[in-house]
């Protein structure tokens, strides 16, 4: 084996290893939080093969917001998944199916990798072709004859057969994918569940969400308040506070946020609401509170806006 062969083999192996690593990585789930994991488990219905977590499409963004609202409202991930399945059908669950056409999605890359590996091995172990010795045989379109080694016709045919099989497999997957995409599956006829098992609280939270979306902040705060009476959780209290803030009742919002901070002294969301409430009231401690929020949660989605607010 000369140095060129070794290098070629090394490049091939490196590429295959990278491909293998990429395949393995794509099967991993990068999301650690509950909402992210839920979103990664749902497939974006209008995008080919993307999950709700990864997709940039507007409907996927809407689904992510819906997931957040429902989780904040106290639903469990299973309940949220069921809710989505009722509306979009079972195909919205993103786990790649291990039967039928779906299996090909996993088998095909694996087969390609193995075929590539086999070719790499063959290249490494093939005896030198006569072109290296400078003999009069030139490499033409397929009749070069390596000195010794396997029968060239068989080798070539094996190459071509495997190439064709690969092309055929890819075509099969393409047809299958086109076929499944073109049939809009009707949603299951079962009635939608309007209340979840944790009924009372979830219902009020959902009402609050809806009212907030309709810019009815005072009514939304009322709904959240009722939910908080039934289940006194910081998350629900903070939603109430936030709605009060938007309803221009900053003093009440501040009171609730302070209540949360008694139990959770450094909670970033509570600091955020308190800081904004203080700012609305013109209180001088607003900036200090908001800076504390930024220190606790520099990666919070609202952080850039808050930074701008403080410095502006």
């Amino acid at each position, binding site marked *: 084996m000369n140095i060129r062969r070794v290098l070629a083999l090394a490049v091939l192996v490196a590429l295959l290893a990278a491909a293998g690593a990429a395949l393995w990585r794509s099967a991993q789930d990068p999301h650690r939080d509950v909402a992210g994991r839920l979103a990664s488990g749902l497939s974006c*219905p*209008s995008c*080919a093969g993307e999950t709700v977590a990864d997709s940039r*499409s*507007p*409907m996927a*963004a*809407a*689904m992510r*917001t*819906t997931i957040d*609202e429902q989780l904040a409202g106290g639903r469990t991930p299973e309940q949220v998944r069921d809710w989505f399945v009722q*509306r*979009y059908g079972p195909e919205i669950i993103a786990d790649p199916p291990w039967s039928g056409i779906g299996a090909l999605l996993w088998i095909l890359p694996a087969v390609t990798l193995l075929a590539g590996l086999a070719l790499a091995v063959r290249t490494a172990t093939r005896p030198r072709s006569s072109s290296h010795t400078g003999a*009069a045989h*030139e490499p*033409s*379109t*397929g*009749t070069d004859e390596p000195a010794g080694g396997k029968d*060239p*016709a068989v080798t*070539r*045919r094996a190459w*071509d057969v495997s*190439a*064709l099989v690969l*092309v*055929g497999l*890819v*075509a099969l997957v*393409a*047809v299958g*994918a*086109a076929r499944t*995409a*073109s049939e*809009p599956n*009707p*949603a299951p*006829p079962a*009635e*939608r569940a309007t209340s979840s098992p944790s009924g009372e609280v979830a219902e009020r939270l959902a009402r609050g*969400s*809806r009212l907030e*979306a*309709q*810019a009815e902040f005072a009514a939304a705060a009322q709904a959240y308040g009722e939910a908080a009476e039934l289940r006194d959780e910081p998350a629900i209290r903070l939603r109430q506070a936030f709605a009060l803030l938007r309803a221009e009742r900053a003093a009440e919002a501040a009171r609730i946020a302070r209540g949360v901070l008694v139990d959770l002294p450094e909670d970033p969301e509570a600091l955020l609401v308190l800081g904004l409430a203080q700012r609305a009231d013109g209180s001088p401690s607003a900036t200090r509170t908001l800076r504390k929020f930024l220190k606790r949660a520099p990666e919070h989605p609202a952080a850039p806006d808050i930074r701008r607010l403080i410095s502006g």
Partner: protein
Amino acid sequence: MTDRASHSPDEAPPTRGWHRLWWVVAAVSVLGLGVVLTAGLRFEGTGEGAATGPATQVKDEAAAPLAGRTLDGGRFDLADLRGQVVVVNVWASWCGPCREELPLLAETARQWSGKGLSVVGLNVRDKDAAARQMLVETGAENLTVVTDPEGTLAVDWGVVGVPETFVVDRDGRVRVRAMGVVTRQWLDQHVLALVRS
């Protein structure tokens, strides 16, 4: 040096013949694959042609809630329209094909106002100003449009993309769903039948 003309006449012709055949077969399969993939792409778009109309699903399920602020600052609640047939059209200003059907929907709304059929738009993941602009441009300012900036109302309806149209019967049940631009024929076929029944 290499001499391309020196193909000796006693090179194995059968191997060459096979070889050419494989190349042809390979070329044909690649071409075939291209055709298949292109054919597959045709099923992706939802704006697939006024000639054939939108993809249609027949359903029979209770409509999800649809209540909220309208573009002109008013309030809307689908529950108030029980007893009428309601066409719910999901659209957005960033949706090109939606532009084609807005004039038709506005005209339908005008024609049938007070006669048992209502049309309401659901403006999803959009900005009020852009939405109003689109209505002006398409002559559809008379349309009642509920805003859904977060898109959560649309998700409750199982919306996949835009445009989509749902037809709700007098008992508040969704009976038909179109995924794609609706045409006059489609409305005649699926909506007016419900109105007249």
